[in-house]
């Protein structure tokens, strides 16, 4: 856009345009303020330079003036705040039907797993025009998932999920950076986000013949014995998990929580933390027994159990062909 002198990152997501508009607004307003102050400073400096026979004229101050130049800028700043907050809320509210990518960050690489079971390292393929939700955790220190072309960023923290979403608008290959300092190879923890036309993306997804993530999760679910208690009828010792995801859950202590990814993750690792009403705290912890990847698969399976009507489509399963 600006020839060889780079001033602007690529604009490749629905968010990017909003952030750019806000940025231009901020640059304009603060530019005007800067120019104003600089001009006044310089005019005063020249006009009121020392001249013989013209002593300084003492002025005590003026409360009206001071109030004026506090209140007006403050109102402008409130506009900054509101605009910024609106964009932030959009960025932090993932759409219901987003495709999901489970992400595990570790020193110093990004590991992605799509719903169809495709795994990637330091490269993320996404289609144009499709909401994508990243569900991320870290195996060691804090990392940060940053795609400048999308104007989005989210720290990735050990011990819990953080999420982020975007909708790519332009095919191309864009930088993926780790923006939270994470040790020796911090600047090497980079990769590419490859945005593809939907048709190319379908082709890419169907290649390889992976097992969908939810199917991996289903297998784990039986292997680990979860299925003996979490039965699909009401006879199990644990709650029936069908249709649970995304719904409010009433707990034994009277609180209500929403069954999101972090809740499911916590329930696997720390079953006693939030007991569903009417159940006994009998589930053993799986901390240390499942890897972050396996945990992701289990979460994906529990979400798939909720079925498409609750929002999360099983399209990852639909796109990919299960193993023969």
């Amino acid at each position, binding site marked *: 856009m600006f020839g060889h002198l780079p001033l602007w990152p690529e604009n490749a997501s629905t968010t990017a345009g909003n952030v750019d508009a806000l940025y231009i607004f901020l640059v304009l307003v603060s530019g005007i303020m800067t120019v104003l102050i600089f001009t006044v400073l310089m005019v005063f400096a020249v006009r009121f330079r020392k001249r013989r026979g013209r002593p300084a004229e003492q002025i005590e101050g003026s409360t009206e003036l001071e109030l004026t130049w506090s209140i007006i800028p403050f109102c402008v700043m409130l506009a900054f705040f509101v605009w910024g907050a609106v964009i932030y809320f959009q960025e932090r509210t993932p759409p219901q039907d987003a495709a999901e990518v489970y992400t595990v960050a570790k020193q110093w690489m990004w590991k992605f797993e799509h719903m169809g079971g495709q795994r990637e390292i330091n490269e993320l393929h996404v289609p144009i025009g499709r909401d994508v939700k990243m569900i991320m955790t870290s195996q060691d220190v804090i990392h940060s998932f940053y795609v400048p072309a999308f104007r989005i960023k989210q720290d990735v923290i050990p011990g819990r999920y953080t999420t982020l979403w975007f909708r790519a608008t332009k095919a191309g290959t864009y930088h993926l950076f780790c923006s939270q300092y994470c040790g020796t190879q911090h600047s090497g923890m980079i990769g590419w986000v490859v945005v593809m036309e939907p048709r190319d993306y379908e082709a890419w997804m169907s290649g390889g013949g992976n097992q969908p993530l939810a199917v991996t999760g289903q297998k784990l679910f039986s292997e680990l014995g979860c299925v003996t208690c979490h039965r699909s009828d009401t006879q199990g010792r644990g709650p029936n998990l069908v249709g649970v995801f995304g719904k409010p859950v009433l707990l034994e202590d009277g609180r209500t929580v929403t069954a999101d990814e972090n809740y499911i993750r916590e329930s696997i690792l*720390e079953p*006693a*933390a939030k007991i569903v009403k009417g159940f*006994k*705290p*009998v589930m053993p*912890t799986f*901390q240390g027994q499942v890897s972050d990847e396996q945990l992701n698969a289990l979460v994906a399976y529990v979400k798939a159990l909720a079925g498409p009507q609750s929002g999360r489509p099983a399209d990852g399963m639909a796109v990919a062909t299960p193993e023969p």
Partner: protein
Amino acid sequence: MVDEHAHENPALLHHFATKEQQKNAASLGMWVFLAQEVMFFGGMFCAYLVYRYKYFADFGSASQQLDIRLGATNTVVLICSSLTVVLAIRAVQLGKRMALVFWLLATILLGLAFLGIKANEYAEKFEKHHVPGASFSYHELLPSQEKLPAAERHYANPHHAEMFFSLYFAMTGMHALHMVVGVGLFGTLAFFAWRGKYTPDYYTPIENAGLYWHFVDIVWIYLFGLLYLIDRHR
């Protein structure tokens, strides 16, 4: 030469106009120092608050592993030491030198008693493997689980119990460190008091050390409530 400038009254420093100004400055300085101490402990109280909120029941379980009798004894010991400090200040105000020395020594003794009991508690934690680190082990019920049939009882998350003990050691450790400093301070004061340095006219160091001691007492009052007394009824 600064030293040559010394006044007749050795207690009045050169840069103060009056003794009253000097005394007021010292007192304000001490209070500002204590404000700083509030925030120093405040950082740990903040951490405690966050984790107590997140791991409510596990903290309750871990708290019950602390010896409430030793904790209560220590509270009483500290309260008594606060009284002896008050009596020491009263003694110096009335110009009773030996009484002053006596009450200062009594304070030191009570301070040492506190530290002794604390050391005993720490030793017990080592024996029970309740010290955070590789050897930590914890297998205790959550509060109010004894009433349930054995199969349904639930145990506290050992990781969160370890977090409780991390905070326990950090908070009581920092407090004990302040006690050690206080005992040293009072030792010095007792020595100078015995030499007759403090008079009804000049006893600012004793007053300020007293403020410090009372502050450390107050911190303990909160630590006792927050570490020893939670979820005891279950």
